[in-house]
């Protein structure tokens, strides 16, 4: 009976995803491409991927890491640096004589390379740092992200990174379906990992690492594995972000970006992949679109100007604090979205009546 339910969920899940892609394609052909809806969808997909990657690390393995922005930075820059067309390099690297990299890689390879570079740095950083207690790990990874940002803004490396100037003119993708496809594939891989024996080992480490070690799970190896894999996907999301923004600059990858991703994960539920996806879209929709009216100075009723730019973010922050304080489990808690879950929920309500 159990297995039949699980199979039903899986088939319906696939059906929904297919439906989603069909809807997206239809939308793309009907609504004007500059609509805010697409901005929200694209950015939502990107943040969904990085949120899930952070959840893999924080929620499923119990490693409180705040270095996500650093790995996105690595991914974004790797992609941009290796795909700027040779003819445009002189213009982009105008202060550095065109830069030293004078070839381009195909887009797909550059994207995968983005993930690999991020994973490589994660491996190096992880070696000394992963055995630390949670608060120290948080600060150490935060520190590494800041060091990376400083390095990428350094003039002496400008021949590669363009120093503190923008990187631009690299190939971008306009279609929303592309972002969903890439994010979707990556998230699917993470879900496969989480449900595999390694995913279970990660959860064991999260629940009780002393017991996990006593049952033969090598902590250093598995923590490094989780860290590296999470950073790989953070790197890919960085590459996607670069495409979405069409220009990137090291200074934007501040720790504030990591905090936003962390808040997305918490709101969605630590330990829930679907929760991270849902809350990512909600978060982006609220901050970029739905709460925009709060910034509109023309809507004030009284003479005191409450509604003006910046009010949106204040309301937003208060909502987040409420969720953190009162709904600690987040939207989904540690459960995943499923049709049997929803029908069970409705059955409970009917039974209560």
């Amino acid at each position, binding site marked *: 009976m159990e297995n039949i339910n699980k199979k039903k969920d899986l088939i319906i899940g696939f059906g929904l995803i297919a439906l989603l892609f069909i809807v997206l394609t239809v939308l793309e052909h009907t609504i004007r491409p500059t609509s805010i809806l697409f901005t929200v969808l694209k950015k939502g997909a990107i943040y969904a991927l990085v949120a899930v990657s952070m959840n893999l690390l924080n929620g499923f393995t119990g490693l409180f890491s705040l270095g996500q922005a650093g790995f996105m930075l690595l991914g974004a820059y790797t992609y941009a640096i290796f795909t700027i067309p040779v003819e445009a390099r002189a213009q982009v690297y105008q202060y550095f004589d065109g830069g030293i990299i004078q070839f381009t890689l195909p887009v797909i390879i550059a994207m995968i390379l983005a993930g690999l570079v991020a994973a490589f740095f994660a491996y190096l950083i992880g070696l000394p740092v992963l055995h630390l207690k949670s608060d120290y790990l948080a600060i150490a990874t935060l520190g590494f992200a800041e060091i990376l940002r400083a390095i990428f803004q*350094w003039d002496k490396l400008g021949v590669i990174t363009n120093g503190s100037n923008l990187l631009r003119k690299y190939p971008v993708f306009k279609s929303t379906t592309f972002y969903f496809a890439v994010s979707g594939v990556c998230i699917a891989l993470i879900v496969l990992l989480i449900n595999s024996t390694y995913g279970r080992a990660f959860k064991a480490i999260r629940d009780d690492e002393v017991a996990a070690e006593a049952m033969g799970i090598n902590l250093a190896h598995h923590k490094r594995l989780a860290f590296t894999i999470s950073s790989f996907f953070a790197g890919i999301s960085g590459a996607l972000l670069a495409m979405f923004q069409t220009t990137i600059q090291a200074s934007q990858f501040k720790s504030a970006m990591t905090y936003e991703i962390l808040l997305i994960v918490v709101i969605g539920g630590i330990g829930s992949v679907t929760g991270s996806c849902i809350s990512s879209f909600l978060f982006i929709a609220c901050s970029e679109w739905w709460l925009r009216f709060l910034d509109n100075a023309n809507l004030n009723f009284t003479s005191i100007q409450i509604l003006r730019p910046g009010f949106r973010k204040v309301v*937003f922050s208060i909502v987040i604090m409420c969720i953190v304080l009162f709904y600690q489990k987040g939207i989904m808690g540690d459960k995943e979205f499923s049709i049997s879950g929803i029908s069970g929920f409705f059955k409970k309500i009917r039974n209560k009546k």
Partner: protein
Amino acid sequence: MNFFQANLPYLLAGISTGGQYALIAIGYTMVYGILRLINFAHGDVFMAAGLIMIYAYTIMPLWISIPLTIILTVLVGFSIERAAYKPLRTAPRMSIMISAIGMSYLIQNLALYITGGLLKNYPKIPWISDSITIFGAITKRVTVITPFLTIILVVALVLLIKYTKIGMAMRAVSKDFETAQLMGIKIDSVISMTFIIGSFLAAVGSILFFSNYPGVTPTVGGMPGLKAFVAAVFGGIGSIPGAVIGAFLIGICENIIKGLGWTTFSDAFTFVLLICVLMFMPTGLFGEKQTDKV
């Protein structure tokens, strides 16, 4: 002698910055010692003190606005603890850290909203903002006052912790939270006192800090806050003298690096120091080793 003269402004700036970081760092180390919480919002309390001073000064003269700033900042720190940390005292460690991050986010956004994102100019406090000359180097009087004021306050604090009842209560709570509670110590009062002292010192630190800087932006608290935390880790988390030593070390090295022309890396130095401490000396200079019972 020329080398010394050329670098003296940086050295003096370093000692001064170090003192300011020390005043912030004490807040971090005390809160971590008692609650095992990295109070991410502490740096923003420091920034808020700066803003409060600016707005107070537009209405009131200096001799009122300075004490008012200090009182209001203490109120802010106290309220943050009551609103965002007290409800989560029994929650897992990650939750309370996330609450601190959320609080920091909220304060920064509030500041952004209130100021409209513009740089606000800090009032010029007479006498301490005046330029003076020391050994041929021109600097502001506040640069010289800061280290002395810091040391006085730190000594006062250490005396308080060693010789008063509330100080003993604080030491007990930082050693063993639960047992202290069972022994009848009013945990809420101790924790509130910790935040009050921390915010008081942050307010003083902000007055000294912003006398030297053109103005206050909403994000200005982030970096000094993080650096002060690293100072606390370096000195051994929970140790006040350690945090002070760490803060002066960071302040001096940071300014020497700037003096050598590597400004982009002056911030990174702090984090390299952090990584080194965590790798080679995780309990810091004066910290205690903690073993987990299996």
